[in-house]
């Protein structure tokens, strides 16, 4: 029993390393780099055993041995002194690697200390050290190296020191910024609060977190040191007694290998340098990917093809006298990742939007609202895919459109007011320019001044004066940016505007202004709006109809009065309880315990069952169908069946 416990502990303790090793070994670049590096280090260590010739003696060499081409006796030919290039290459590895590693060690030591001291102590010390680093960073390395080495004795030790003493600038900058980041973390502040000394904090709290970055940087510094040594040697400034790869190239280039056509004497040592530096580079690049993984996806990656299906036979719902602009039938959108179950972000969602209608789309974060909205224009990231259903916009099937047709519908027919306009506006182009662009793209070409008139008119519509037209987004306040975003969304007179939480991150006064603006624009311009929000108060005040989503499916969908007065889905009821009612101020606000389900690990039964206060056994086993209650009212809950 006890032995088992101990064993368990050992495994648990080594697991961070094992985890690292697992991800590392899956990174092909890093593994190849490591193998290349280890091979050449082994060659350098076992030079005596591997090299076919002894390079220290010139016995048995005659003038006829000079620059002999590759043969069975000399795999890579001979050099200007008649010596075996392959053997020189193997011993050269030893010298080049020694210089690289030792010089890099010096650089990293100095850079590490400067970086930690500057980052940790801050204030004047930091200022002084960083100014010094900046000056050193600007002065080019190689000429300084050349000057210093040329004026001192060409001894290997000198060269190592000079390269080491000049190569620390990048290290100190990286270490400093990492130290700064670590310094203000909670556990360091706590350690300080319980009286830990500076040295203790640096050794036990800061160094371990700086280490990974330092290792990646060390790899770069080593490769630069090796390149610098070979360049110095090639320029004739190396130690003439130490035949490094650079020195071999210097001798061959300076002593007629070119005119003798002895390519082997020039190619082989260079390949050695390339081998080591490439190995280090691959290792460093791979390590960086392992330590700091990033999703290499973006908005321009080609999307997955739409799966064309016939819409289910659920009859169209919510008919009214006004013409239908947008009809979504049984739309399903999944995110697909290789080797993982798909994330079912939207499933079988249907709704109808009429001319001039304002529909509220309500639900917690992560319930598929944004995916659904982006899905209407097929705008989601590359992993997303429509796996079923139809979107009809003014009678045309958006899911069957070609890329070109899509470009025409976007913004001209349906536009989006994105949330967080700071990020949704291009920071290096003026507001006017970004609005103008949309007009030029979609509206029949007008003479330049007319486009500008239209931009002024749009800005005026949202209460921004013309003199702000050529300002950049950072010169606007948060509310102004959101209003500019609205102006941009209206630029091409779209039929439908999707407002994706347009008021998050704004203060209450500005929120009210923006909402009022949207409502008045709807009435003046006859827009249809889909309003994505958490705010049930806004929905009650403005919307005609409400779609409540939960875990990617429709929870309930009806006109606004029905939702507020006789909601049938427990989720809707809970949401309403969480919303303050001014007529009953004594009522306590309730929150719904728990979180929405992960879309890639949905429960077997009703998606809301785990959090539902009234769930019965059936709810956990069987997914409820969407029940039609009367005319416009649907809800997906077993309990409405009775």
């Amino acid at each position, binding site marked *: 029993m006890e032995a088992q416990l101990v064993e368990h502990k050992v495994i648990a303790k080594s697991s961070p390393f094992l985890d690292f090793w697992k991800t590392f070994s899956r990174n092909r670049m890093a593994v190849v780099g490591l193998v290349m590096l280890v091979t050449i280090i082994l060659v350098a260590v076992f030079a005596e055993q591997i090299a076919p010739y002894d390079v220290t003696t010139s016995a048995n060499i005659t003038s006829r041995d000079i620059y002999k081409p590759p043969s069975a006796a000399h795999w890579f030919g001979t050099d200007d002194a008649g010596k075996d290039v392959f053997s020189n290459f193997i011993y050269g590895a030893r010298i080049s690697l020694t210089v690289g590693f030792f010089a890099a060690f010096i650089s990293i030591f100095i850079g590490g200390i400067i970086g930690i001291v500057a980052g940790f102590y801050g204030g004047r010390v930091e200022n002084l050290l960083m100014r010094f680093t900046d000056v050193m960073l600007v002065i080019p390395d*190689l000429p300084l190296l050349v000057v210093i080495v040329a004026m001192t004795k060409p001894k290997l030790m000198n060269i190592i020191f000079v390269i080491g003493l000049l190569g620390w600038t990048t290290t100190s900058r990286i270490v400093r910024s990492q130290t700064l980041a670590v310094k203000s973390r909670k556990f360091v502040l706590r350690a300080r609060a319980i009286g830990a000394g500076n040295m203790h904090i640096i050794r036990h709290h800061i160094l371990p977190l700086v280490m990974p970055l330092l290792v990646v940087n060390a790899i770069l510094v080593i490769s630069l040191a090796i390149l610098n040594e070979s360049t110095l040697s*090639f320029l004739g400034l190396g130690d003439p007694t130490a035949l490094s790869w650079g020195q071999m190239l210097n001798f061959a280039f300076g002593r007629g290998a070119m005119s003798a056509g002895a390519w082997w004497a020039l190619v082989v040592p260079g390949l050695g340098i390339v081998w080591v530096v490439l190995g280090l580079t691959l290792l460093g690049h791979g390590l960086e990917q392992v330590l700091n993984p990033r999703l290499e996806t973006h908005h321009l990656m080609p999307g997955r093809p739409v799966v064309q299906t016939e819409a289910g036979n659920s009859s169209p719902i919510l008919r009214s006298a006004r013409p239908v602009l947008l009809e979504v039938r049984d739309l399903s959108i999944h995110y697909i990742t290789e080797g993982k179950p798909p994330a079912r972000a939207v499933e079988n969602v249907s709704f109808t939007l009429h001319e001039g209608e304002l529909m509220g789309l309500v639900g917690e974060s992560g319930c598929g609202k944004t995916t659904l909205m982006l899905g209407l224009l097929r705008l989601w990231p590359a992993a997303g895919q429509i796996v079923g259903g139809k979107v009809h916009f003014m009678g045309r099937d958006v899911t069957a459109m070609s890329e070109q047709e899509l470009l025409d519908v976007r*913004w001209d027919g349906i536009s989006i007011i994105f949330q967080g306009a700071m990020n949704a506006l291009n920071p290096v182009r003026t507001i006017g320019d970004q609005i103008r662009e949309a007009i030029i793209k979609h509206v029949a070409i007008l003479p330049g001044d007319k486009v500008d008139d239209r931009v002024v008119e749009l800005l005026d519509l949202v209460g921004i004066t013309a003199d702000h037209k050529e300002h950049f987004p950072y010169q606007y306040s948060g509310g102004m940016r959101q209003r500019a975003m609205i102006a941009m969304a209206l630029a091409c007179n779209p039929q439908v505007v999707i407002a994706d939480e347009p008021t998050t991150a704004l203060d209450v006064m500005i929120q009210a202004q923006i909402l009022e603006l949207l409502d008045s624009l709807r009435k003046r311009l006859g827009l249809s709006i889909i309003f994505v929000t958490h705010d049930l108060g806004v929905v009650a005040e403005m919307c005609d109809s409400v779609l409540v989503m939960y875990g990617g499916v429709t929870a309930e969908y009806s006109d606004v009065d029905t939702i507020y007065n006789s909601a049938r889905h427990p989720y809707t009821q809970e949401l309403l309880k969480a919303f303050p009612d001014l007529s009953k101020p004594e009522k306590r606000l309730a929150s719904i315990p728990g979180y929405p389900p992960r879309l890639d690990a949905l429960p077997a039964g009703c998606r809301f069952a785990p959090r539902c206060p009234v769930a019965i056994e059936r709810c956990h086993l069987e997914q409820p169908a969407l029940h039609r209650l009367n005319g416009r009212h649907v809800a997906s809950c077993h309990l409405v069946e009775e």
Partner: protein
Amino acid sequence: MKRQQYLIKKISWAVFTIAVVLILNFFLFRILPGDPARSGIHDPRLKKDAVEAIRVRYGLDKPVINCIEKVNPVVFGGCLVNPLDTQFFIYVTNLFKGEMGISYHTNRPVAEILVERVWNTILLIGAGQVLAIIFGVIFGIFAAWKARTTIDYAALLSSLLAWSLPTFWLGIILLFWGSANGLPIAGKATPGMSSMPWTDQWADILRHIFLPTLTYTIVFMGEYMLIMRSSLLDVLSEDYILTAKAKGLSTFQILKDHARKNAMLPLVTVIAINLGFTVAGALQIETVFSWPGLGGTIYESVNRRDFPVLQGTFLLINVSVILANLIADLTYSYLDPRVQSES
């Protein structure tokens, strides 16, 4: 107002750095052993008045600077000497007059040699950088756009390989290839070309500069590609790209109007930081191809122990790099309107 403050800050930083370089340049060449004019003074075979004549000729009889009589070994001296009559002051005033001493090897003024050579380096670096940036940006955009496809991996691997090549060695390999294909392998022009029409002269220079520029482009393209790729990947996952897509812009329009400029901002910084490597590259390439520029001058003056030329070249290179850095900073502030408001 903010823009002015930014300019003043950057310019004063450049002036400060240049001052540091001036001081470094002065003391470095006095502290380190190896200068024949200075170390030769200790040669026992020289007569005393000859030594004195050399000392006077190079101004070595004067104190180095206030409080320091000599360096190497350091001898402290009177602090009350006339500051105008110290070696440091004379060095600085001479520099402002454009005098950088006389070459030991050719007996020509150093400034004259440098002026003659600097244009060749500017020509080489200019052509190489422009091509490296153009190709690096184009390939980087392609790699990012086609992220995680074979095209992307091929581009990534070849740029890592290009980064790993020692510049001088790539030069040697291309030299080998060029000489086998009848390209000129050394210098800037074929002797005797000056009597030919200028079109032929330019064609001749173009043939000479082809291989050095090719080397330069290959070595620097890889890194620019990597930077462009990674910064474009960042930009393309920004919200405003989704906005642009929602606006119905085509992929080409988004890349051209929304992503390119933003993604190139980090590139400007990298180009500035790279100027040091640029000089290192030029030094190696000029040596391999016997190109008559500043890098070649360093190589020659090291081998000839021609210290006045070495000192002058070193100073010129450092000052140029600092000024180029300044230009890069100012360009950045012009490209990114946010910079002025933040700093």
